[in-house]
């Protein structure tokens, strides 16, 4: 009986997403939840102040949801995994086996105004001022399309974009502040929290005049 239960739990954990790591207060559908909580389609994950959650999907991809953030798991049991970030910021680490050989998108992130398609493995997305969206890529390539964009913009490793008012995607370029983002999703590390304030993103160092 115990063995059957283990088999059942094991198979369930393979085919479901779960809360892989929790710090502080994390809510699933407004209910305080802890590490190991099984997640299903349309579950809403919310983090409180000084809290964070790492979600592991069925494919092994991980999403680190920063403090004061909200993410809805739209389709996490389909071939194309799909999540909706509606508040705050999140790091995404998409396992390579989840990217098809023919370069098809296998993971999608929606915000209030953009859709991001993941061809790469590691990226960060955040809300800024006035519904702005910041996105930067640490590994691989991510495509992004905003409301007023006529076509998708491909953002490569080391580059980032700003979607001003959620409407138009800027030209991809290196963003100095993203160098200090905390990409780690390893729970054995001391601090997984992101220390970069999004205000830093608004300082365009190429526009900074000292003299």
């Amino acid at each position, binding site marked *: 009986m115990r063995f059957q239960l283990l088999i059942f739990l094991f198979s369930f954990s393979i085919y479901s997403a779960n809360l892989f790591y929790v710090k502080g207060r994390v809510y699933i559908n407004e209910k305080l939840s802890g590490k190991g909580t099984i997640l299903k389609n349309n579950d809403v994950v919310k983090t409180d102040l000084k809290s964070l959650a790492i979600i592991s999907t069925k494919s092994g991809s991980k999403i680190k949801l920063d403090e004061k953030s909200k993410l809805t798991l739209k389709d996490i049991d389909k071939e194309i995994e799909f999540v909706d970030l509606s508040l705050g910021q999140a790091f995404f680490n998409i396992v390579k086996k989840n990217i098809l050989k023919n370069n098809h998108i296998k993971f999608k992130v929606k915000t209030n105004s953009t859709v991001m398609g993941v061809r790469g493995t590691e990226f960060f997305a955040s809300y800024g001022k006035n519904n702005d969206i910041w996105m930067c890529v640490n590994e691989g390539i991510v495509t992004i399309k905003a409301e007023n964009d006529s076509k998708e913009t491909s953002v490569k490793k*080391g580059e980032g974009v700003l979607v001003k008012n959620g409407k138009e995607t800027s*030209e991809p*370029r*290196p963003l*100095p*502040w993203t*160098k*200090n983002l905390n990409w780690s999703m390893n729970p054995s590390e001391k601090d997984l929290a*992101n*220390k*970069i*304030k999004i*205000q*830093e993103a608004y*300082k*365009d*160092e*190429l*526009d*900074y*005049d*000292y*003299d």
Partner: protein
Amino acid sequence: MIMIKLPLFFLISFLTFAHDHVPAGDEKHVHAHDYQFDLRFFKKINSKINLMFELENIVHEKRNNETQIMAGGKYRVNSHFKIGAYLGSIWGMRHDEDWVKTQSPDWGWRNTSSRDEQFLVLESIWRDNYDLFRMFIGELRLRFFQTFRFDKQTLRIRPKISTTILKDGLAFCTLFIMHERYLPINYSSEDLYAYWTYLGLMFHPQASFDWGPFVSIGQEVWSPDDALIRKTTNDNWKSVEEAVRLGFNLNFYY
């Protein structure tokens, strides 16, 4: 701690260069310790235009002090490129023409501290990010400098590299190193009128102001061209002032 020790190391290293030098023949060398203060006000009109007012004061150890005011602005052509124009006044600037016969048998420098002259600056600035072991900003600034009293034209070329250090997720300070070369266009018998190498820090306590110390080491050379020699001394001469400057920047942003 390393970030504090590093500039101090450079400062001490630079100061050790500032020893006295013996004048030889018609070439005179002077070594000086100077102080510089720069106060700037920036006003961003929109995403393209940034106005600036600058007050600069240099306290020279071996000659009269210089004070300069300058006002103008920069226009951002694209994310990497800016152009700018400024008008200003300077008091105390020394030119080759200021080497004059004094009442004593010797020649000497005229005191120019109360002499004002107007100038025009046209500039272009190119900047880019460089992702090395950390993110750096590379900059190349070209300034065309025209003074009107003596009609001197100078091209100033200044490459600069800087990197910003974050603390608690926000910009804490920027470390910069730059080198500026002054190329005389219509005066001097020298190819290089002056050069300065700077090492400095800019702290960012608030979005509305920055401050920081810097140290610079360099030299200025006064050496008349043939026309001026014929008009004045009838003899070739050269005067070099090598200096170490300790400076302080204070910037306000509106």
